[in-house]
């Protein structure tokens, strides 16, 4: 009813009011909310923690901590967003990261120069991704199953290559990436933000991006239009794999070692951030910005709860509740 009334006024007064009507329409558009809900949630989290503990939470030192903590997950989340946008999912990201880290370690201990180690790690990740994409698209096996298999294969590969031993990597220039900052923004975050910006451009301003969303939205229609699903899937998974391989390098810069044990929480966080960021798990609709903010949200939440001294047991519950509540809000607004 309100909509009718709105339409009437809009048509009657035309021009000036149409902008307002557009905004009204925008508010009613479910996608608008799934896009901005996460920003609102993020601001709420910052405000609440800021009010509860202004002297510890809202310091440049601590905001810097949140940015450092968010940078590596943010890069993984970009790759995950691409796979989910094609109605897929990449469960192997954490293992690919481990595999990439071990490859980096091998190259480094063999005395390769740093930039070659970085490329090697990224290529190792890309190789896993290409295999994921090829098997998914060529054999038409569910993304979930293939990447679940790769999760195990890459984790095993990492253990085989490293003989199960962590390799220490002490390199000052590499460690400086994780330690240094420019105008209170850590280098790591600049790298993450660069990747986010490129990903946004690729998804929304290139033909590849349009095709990707088309494949995610309706694969049959996309195929009918002559889009190669195999090509899209392979590229998408190799993007996710390469980013995981590259993120491995940044992980090494933070912890100073190539560890053969997989860190599965990064996988769970990436899926949570993609959903929170308003990307449809059924594919075809995505934003790069939303999952990025969701990553900040998750890290700010964990940081704030730690600062408030909330016992670890309750932190698990708090993070889970935020994920479920936000996801269900996004879901309702999508209807």
């Amino acid at each position, binding site marked *: 009813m309100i909509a009718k009334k709105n339409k009437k006024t809009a048509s009657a007064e035309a021009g000036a009011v149409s902008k307002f009507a557009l905004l009204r329409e925008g508010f009613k558009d479910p996608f608008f909310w799934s896009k901005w809900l996460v920003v609102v949630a993020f601001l709420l989290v910052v405000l609440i923690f800021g009010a509860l503990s202004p002297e510890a939470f809202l310091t440049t030192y*601590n905001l810097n901590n949140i940015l450092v903590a968010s940078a590596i997950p943010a890069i993984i989340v970009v790759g995950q967003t691409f796979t989910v946008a094609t109605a897929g999912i990449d469960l192997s990201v954490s293992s690919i990261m481990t595999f990439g880290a071990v490859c980096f370690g091998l190259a480094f201990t063999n005395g390769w120069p740093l930039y070659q180690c970085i490329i090697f790690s990224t290529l190792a990740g890309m190789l896993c991704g290409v295999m994921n994409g090829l098997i998914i698209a060529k054999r038409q096996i569910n993304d979930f199953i293939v990447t679940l298999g790769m999760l195990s294969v890459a984790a095993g590969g990492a253990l085989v290559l490293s003989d*199960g031993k962590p390799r*220490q990597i*002490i390199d000052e220039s590499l460690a400086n990436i*994780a*330690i240094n900052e420019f105008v209170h923004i850590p280098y790591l975050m600049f790298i993450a933000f660069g990747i986010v910006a490129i990903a946004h451009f690729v998804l929304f301003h290139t033909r590849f991006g349009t095709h990707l969303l088309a494949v995610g939205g309706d694969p049959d229609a996309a195929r009918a239009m002559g889009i190669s699903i195999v090509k899209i899937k392979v590229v998408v998974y190799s993007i996710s794999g390469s980013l995981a391989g590259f993120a491995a390098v940044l992980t090494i810069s933070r*912890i*100073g070692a190539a560890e053969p044990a997989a*860190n599965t929480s990064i996988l769970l966080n990436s899926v949570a951030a993609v959903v929170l960021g308003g990307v449809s798990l059924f594919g075809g609709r995505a934003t790069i910005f939303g999952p990025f903010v969701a990553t900040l949200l998750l890290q700010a939440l*964990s940081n704030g709860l730690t600062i408030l001294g909330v016992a670890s047991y309750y932190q698990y519950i708090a993070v889970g509740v935020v994920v479920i509540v936000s996801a269900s809000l996004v879901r309702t607004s999508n209807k």
Partner: protein
Amino acid sequence: MTSAAALAFAAATSPVVNAAPKKLKDIRIAAVVKGLDNPFFIGIKEGIEETALKYGVYANVQAAPGLNDDIGQANKLDSLAGQNYDCYIVIPISSNNLSQAVGKITKKGKTVINIDSPIDAASLKAAGGKVTSFAGTDNFAAGKAGGAHMVKAIGTGKKIALIAGLAGNVTSNARINGFKEGAAGATFVGPENADWDTTKALDKANAMLLANPDIAGFFAANDQMAQGIAKAVKAAGKKIPVYGVDGIADALAEVKAGNITATISQYPYVMGQMGVQACIIAAQGGKVPASTITPYYIIDSTNIDKALTNKSTRGFFPNQLPPGEYKNPYASKIKK
């Protein structure tokens, strides 16, 4: 001139550790332990909290989000580093993952006490971090004691099966290698990795017993796996010794029942206690002992009753304190 400048520079940059000695009630301690899905770290948490309560100091104990979440743990320590704590107690998930975070704390002039698993010295140095004191178990020595104990019981030249934790885990390797050295002269089957898990250890032990019916003893790198092995041994109708490491409540009950022969018991509660005591000494401006080895005891049928009397509040580690004397270089240095 240059030397004077260098001196001034050194004075300005070297961390000023606790310029003014603090009163007990003003001392604030933060601790970041490993994942609390392992009873061992709950034991440490209890040791920290109860000791803090005893001395009247404040302690905030946080844990890594998961047992393998090395970066998540570093993030937690970073979050706490910005706050007004006097001292940080840390247990790194890997030997490197907390080095940078510790470096940041050192630069702020705060004290860091490392317990349980050591932070690697080279990576710590590269990050500019400093650990004031370390209190932890010597896993190699604990394994070695177990090996010697088992050989004494079954005789030399026998076949002993080894079950390890996660592949590549430093603690597991130290215990297994220590055991092998202690049990020198025996032949070994394995080690097979059962990922610290009871069920996996049960399956591995079954397979090992099938392939080698002449196994004369089992050693597992932790108690949960020893429990699985004990079931497999019982099902196979054998009577051979099964040794575990840690001394968790379930394992002690099994030692009492005679299913597990012995557990090389550790005292996480004592580690937590020593961590808090070291923090207090530092905050009071005292001289903190650089490192100490926390005790381990072999608990078998001869001393199980004594071990079971020391009840902890949560009951995961009933033997809060060892059933005998142990060295604590910290306690006497605290000013009341």
